[in-house]
């Protein structure tokens, strides 16, 4: 059976440290835009950590939630793309095909999670920062939309490696950059079509919820709600 890639983020483990944010930049050749462009809302953090405050001082609860492309099963960004640059891949990802993209930005407009980013200018790296660029990932030029790909380059590399060894990809073998760096192991990635995979198991948790589920986007990212403490033990 074909893989259907999915992710689980345990909000009880996530500390909001943003290791995922920087790891993603390093892996995916995301350029920094500088202070002026950042002030215009053009920074490209494919994954971000949202921080919410609940309550008033002194009883304030702070909550973190990493948000990235949900690789929606019913992605609102796919039907609006006039060139099929945003499309659904056979393995359940929302693919962003850069050479098809003509930069209408309808996809970003349609995305309820605000996880799509546009290259308003050609990205620039002060030399020799460009030596850090990952050769496995395309450089996106001006006029192209970009977003989290679940590190499709890592998925492809693992599948090719597994194929050469005449086996299937093992659970836990593929780790997107964010998942690999996450210091509390809050993020888990794997095949939702495999009921025994860790991601499938965790997605069945009683704490499982999906972001903006009510919109019918069928996101592939499952969030595990922050747990509570009942004098010692909790399920």
């Amino acid at each position, binding site marked *: 059976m074909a893989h259907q890639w999915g992710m689980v983020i345990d909000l009880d483990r996530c500390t909001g440290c943003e290791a995922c944010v920087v790891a993603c930049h390093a892996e995916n050749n995301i350029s920094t835009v500088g202070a002026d462009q950042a002030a215009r809302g053009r920074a490209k953090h494919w994954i971000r950590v949202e921080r919410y405050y609940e309550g008033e001082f002194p009883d304030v609860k702070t909550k973190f939630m990493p948000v990235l492309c949900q690789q929606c099963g019913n992605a609102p960004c796919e039907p609006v793309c006039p060139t099929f640059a945003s*499309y659904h*891949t056979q393995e359940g990802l929302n693919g962003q*095909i*850069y050479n098809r993209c003509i930069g209408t930005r309808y996809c970003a407009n349609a995305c309820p999670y605000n996880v799509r980013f546009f290259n308003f200018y*050609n*990205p*620039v790296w002060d030399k020799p920062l460009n030596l850090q660029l990952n050769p*496995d990932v395309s450089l996106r030029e001006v006029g192209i939309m970009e977003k989290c790909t679940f590190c*499709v380059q890592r998925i492809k590399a693992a599948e090719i490696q597994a*194929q050469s060894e005449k086996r299937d990809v093992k659970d836990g073998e593929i780790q997107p950059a964010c998942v690999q760096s996450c210091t509390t192991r809050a993020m888990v990635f794997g095949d939702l079509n495999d009921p025994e995979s860790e991601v499938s198991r965790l997605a069945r948790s009683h704490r499982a919820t999906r972001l903006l589920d009510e919109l019918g986007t069928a996101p592939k990212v499952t969030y595990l709600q922050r747990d509570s403490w009942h004098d010692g033990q909790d399920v």
Partner: protein
Amino acid sequence: MSLSAGGFKSWLRIIAVIGIGFVTWLVVEHALPAEGQATPSSAQEPTAGVFTTAHSTVTQAIEEFFNYRPEPTQPITFTHKVHLANGLQCINCHVGVDQGPDARIPSVNFCMTCHRVIATTNPEIQKLSGYLARGEDVPWQRVYGFEPSAHVKFNHAPHIRAGVQCAECHGDMTKQTVAVRAVNLNMGFCVQCHRQHNVSVDCVTCHF
């Protein structure tokens, strides 16, 4: 607008304006980065300048847009014909083609392992040893490749492992001296073979 004499002039004006507009847009959007020029490195300053996806000239931008890539000139007239006739395999020099995405172009050190003694009087070989003597690597010019805007991530290894012969995409090297683009590697060429062999034609297989 009617095609009277006055109407025709109006059309011409409109076309001229659009033409200037197009060129301006090309210059602004494709040749210049956001802040200032794409500056090249000057002598002794490896950290001067910027690296950008912008083209450094309009000509380059136009050439990429129309996929215009003339055959390059090689610094040394390397002849595949002769090397293959002498029993070398592709993979002896183009190491890595079965391990990863790229085929290595050997360095001058590698060539000299043989050419320290073989055909040393040949003027092309003397060019080769000249490079090494100067501490320089041979500046081979890339023959095969895809435009950056095609965003293709081609991986040799699965193809070699699947038994695809080098000649299928690179032509019969026993007939070539310096490598030339004997096969037109457009997308149709790739997709046709993929369909034939029942391999995925999902966009994200190659474009990511």
